[in-house]
């Protein structure tokens, strides 16, 4: 359907009014084609008839020409041709008929512009009964003709009679061609407009109308959209490009009146000159909204691609950094065995600069050959993605042998084809060194272990030996003690007799003895007594050491004991020229100890003092130390004294400072040794203070009561 823009907006509103308006138009119109077009448009919008065709007779060609249509495909129009002479044709017969003809069937054996539906054919002829000059074909709304169709047919009959006689056939033919043209441009999906240079619309096709014209019942939004589109279009045309005769392309953004969305068009406009109508502009709008979107998408994809490429570049860079930073050589070879990638450590082995010299190059070639044969292992072994083995390489620069362990792995494509082989080499020099060291260490360790075991066995043996020796020693010691105890007893029996008989002789039991005999008997007596003292001392020491010296504890007064000791030694004191005094306090607490042994000690200390003091005095003092709860008995003399280095020796067995056989002082040399042992048995001690020539002080200290040990 085509019509001018001015008509589109001037359609009458009501039925009666529009019918009157149509009648008025037909009366004033001088172009049959325009009349026919206007009439069938009216019919279409007021009767619901869907397909309408107006055909008129071309007297010169004896042909029927279609001049207006509604709802008919352009193909049907192009294909349709009908000769007036074909009297047998149902349409020709219907045209010749005085009354409208109804074709009730859907399909017909003849060609017709209205196909597939029942239709009416109404001949157009003048009132005078002359032959019809045309016909109106309408799709049927029923078997009876619609009254308005009949009315329009009458109006067109009159109009035809009035105008066709004056119109040239040529004009009619042009009209048909123009109709065909309209139908074709309507078929084009792009909006097409014909405007004057100001952009005022002359002709628009359907698609253009949707954008630039609104029906009278359109919403406010629709109208505004249409007004906006007209304004935008005019503005686009009025730009300088339109002044050119060359076709101009530009983008034009319009609004979809129904959807309200933006539509982007490419506007192709060109000027045309027409002899009658002057200069006008043909504009074709191409919807590029989708295109623009697609372009955006492509740009987006491109950007994404660029980013991805950058990522890949970064990744590759990182990968390079990583594999370069690995100390082990890494190589990638393709399926031909050629190296495609290698890190810096690998480069040192497989790629040296020519300046490195021929020997280095030779080593590199040898290394390459070794690598190739190694990689071929993984290439030839199907099904295995990994191969591990040792390779004997050499350092190109030094020529030093370089045993390495290689691990080759394949990289397969998604289709499972072998793409690359990645080989990582690991220097085994250190590992081999370590293995050697470890071996040596192991040997050393084993040796050490063996030695330790031997030593342990030795020690165990020694321990056992020692244990046995210890037992043997204990037994020997016990035997010794027993032996000494027995021996001393056995000594006493004969000694008893010797002493006894000597005594009897001296006492004159056997008669009077001479002076010289008495002297000899006295010598026998004193030596026997000395021997007896020695035997007694040895017996004491033996018993102390064997732990067989029992303690008989009792409580006694120290000062009393001192007096007793002094009185026992009275004969010796009298014989000496010494002053012997005792200074004891009566406030001394009683002492609980072994009286016999304390007495033995004091006797010994005092007799020693008397023995070793040629002149001067001997003083005995007894005191009590509150703090230590101990009693101290000191025996001080003004005798020969003992040099400091010898002060510890005097307590040792058989020690007298004068070791000469003719000792001037007599004694067994065991006295102090026994005294010290006894004092220790009693929980006490004996101390010595002495200066040679100044005298000595021996101090016996005893706890006032025995302490538990």
């Amino acid at each position, binding site marked *: 359907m085509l019509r001018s823009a001015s008509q589109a907006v001037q359609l009458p509103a009501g039925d009666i009014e529009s019918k009157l308006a149509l009648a008025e138009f037909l009366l004033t119109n001088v172009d049959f084609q325009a009349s026919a077009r206007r009439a069938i448009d009216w019919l279409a919008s007021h009767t619901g008839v869907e397909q309408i065709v107006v055909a008129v007779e071309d007297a010169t060609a004896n042909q029927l020409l279609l001049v207006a249509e509604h709802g008919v495909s352009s193909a049907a129009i192009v294909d349709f041709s009908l000769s007036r002479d074909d009297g047998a044709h149902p349409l020709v017969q219907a045209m010749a008929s005085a009354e409208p003809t109804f074709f009730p069937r859907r399909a017909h054996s003849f060609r017709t512009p209205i196909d597939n539906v029942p239709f009416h054919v109404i001949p157009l002829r003048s009132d005078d009964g002359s032959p019809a000059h045309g016909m109106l074909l309408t799709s049927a709304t029923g078997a009876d003709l619609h009254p308005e169709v009949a009315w329009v047919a009458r109006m067109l009959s009159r109009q035809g009679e009035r105008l066709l006689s004056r119109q040239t056939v040529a004009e009619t033919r042009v009209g048909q061609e123009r109709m065909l043209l309209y139908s074709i441009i309507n078929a084009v999906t792009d909006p097409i407009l014909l405007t004057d240079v100001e952009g005022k619309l002359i002709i628009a096709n359907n698609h253009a109308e949707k954008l630039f014209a609104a029906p009278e019942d359109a919403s406010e939004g629709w109208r505004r959209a249409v007004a906006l589109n007209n304004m935008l279009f005019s503005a686009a045309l009025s730009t300088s490009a339109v002044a050119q005769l060359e076709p101009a392309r530009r983008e034009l953004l319009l609004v979809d009146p129904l959807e309200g969305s933006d539509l982007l068009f490419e506007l192709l406009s060109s000027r045309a000159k027409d002899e009658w109508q002057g200069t006008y502009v043909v504009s074709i709008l191409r919807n590029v909204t989708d295109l623009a979107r697609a372009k955006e998408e492509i740009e987006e994809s491109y950007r994404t691609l660029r980013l991805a490429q950058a990522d890949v570049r970064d990744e590759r860079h990182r990968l390079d950094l990583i594999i370069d930073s690995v100390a082990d050589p890494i190589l990638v070879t393709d399926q031909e065995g050629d190296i495609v990638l290698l890190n810096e450590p690998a480069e040192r082995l497989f790629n040296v600069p020519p300046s490195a010299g021929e020997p280095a190059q030779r080593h590199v070639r040898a290394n390459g050959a070794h690598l190739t044969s190694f990689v071929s292992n993984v290439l030839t072994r199907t099904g295995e993605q990994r191969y591990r083995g040792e390779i004997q390489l050499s350092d190109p620069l030094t020529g030093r042998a370089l045993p390495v362990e290689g691990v080759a792995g394949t990289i397969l494509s998604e289709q499972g084809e072998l793409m690359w082989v990645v080989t990582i080499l690991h220097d085994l020099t250190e590992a081999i060194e370590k293995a050697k060291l470890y071996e040596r260490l192991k040997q050393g360790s084993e040796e050490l272990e063996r030695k330790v075991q031997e030593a342990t066995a030795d020690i165990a043996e020694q321990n056992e030996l020692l244990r046995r020796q210890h037992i043997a020693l204990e037994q020997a010691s016990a035997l010794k003690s027993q032996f000494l*105890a027995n021996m001393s*007893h056995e000594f*006493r*029996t*004969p*000694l*008893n*007799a010797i*002493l*006894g*008989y000597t*005594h*009897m002789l001296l*006492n*004159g*039991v056997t008669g009077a003895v001479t002076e010289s005999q008495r002297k000899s008997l006295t010598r026998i007596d004193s030596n026997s007594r000395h021997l*007896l003292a020695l035997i*007694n001392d040895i*017996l004491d020491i033996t018993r102390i050491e064997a732990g067989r010296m*029992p303690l*008989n504890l009792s409580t006694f007064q120290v000062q009393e004991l001192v007096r007793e000791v002094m009185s026992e030694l009275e004969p010796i004191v009298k014989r000496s020229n010494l002053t012997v005094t005792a200074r004891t306090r009566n406030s001394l607490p009683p002492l609980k100890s072994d009286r016999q042994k304390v007495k033995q000690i004091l006797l010994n200390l005092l007799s020693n003092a008397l023995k070793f003091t040629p002149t001067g005095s001997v003083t005995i003092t007894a005191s009590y130390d509150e703090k230590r709860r101990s009693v101290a008995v000191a025996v001080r003399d003004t005798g020969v004294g003992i040099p400091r280095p010898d002060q510890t020796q005097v307590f040792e067995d058989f020690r007298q400072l004068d070791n000469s056989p003719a000792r001037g002082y007599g004694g067994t040399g065991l006295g102090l040794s026994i005294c010290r042992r006894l004092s220790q048995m009693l929980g006490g001690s004996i101390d010595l203070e002495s200066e040679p020539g100044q005298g000595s002080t021996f101090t016996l200290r005893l706890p006032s009561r025995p302490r538990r040990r």
Partner: protein
Amino acid sequence: MPDSQKNSPLVLVVEDYQDAREMYAAYLRFSGFRVAEATNGFEAIEKSVLLKPDIILMDLALPKMDGWEATRRLKLDERTKHIPIVALTGHALAGHAEGARQAGCDAFVTKPCLPDALVAEIQRMLASRVGDRKDTKRAPKAPGR
């Protein structure tokens, strides 16, 4: 034997070692005592019963029957239990002394014992018995020097 000694106390010296026994016997006679001798425990008991000595000097280490056993028997016998027994021991150990006392010895002397000391001990023992006995015998005085 002089008459002066007929009433002197009789000492039984029990000692297996002849030298010592005869030495003590000689000195005791020299000191005015009458002396009988025995060499073992059996003899000691036999002579004690037979001779009824005034005091017995008993060595403890004796063959056949030792001094402890002999002492125990003498002290269990009504005829001899009143006779004081002085033990002679070579081991100056408290244990020996205690053993002797338990066996019934009235005193003990440690060997070596000089004849003087032995005589002194015997006189001391006899003196302490003076009030207990009917047939009191005067103990001889120690020989003066």
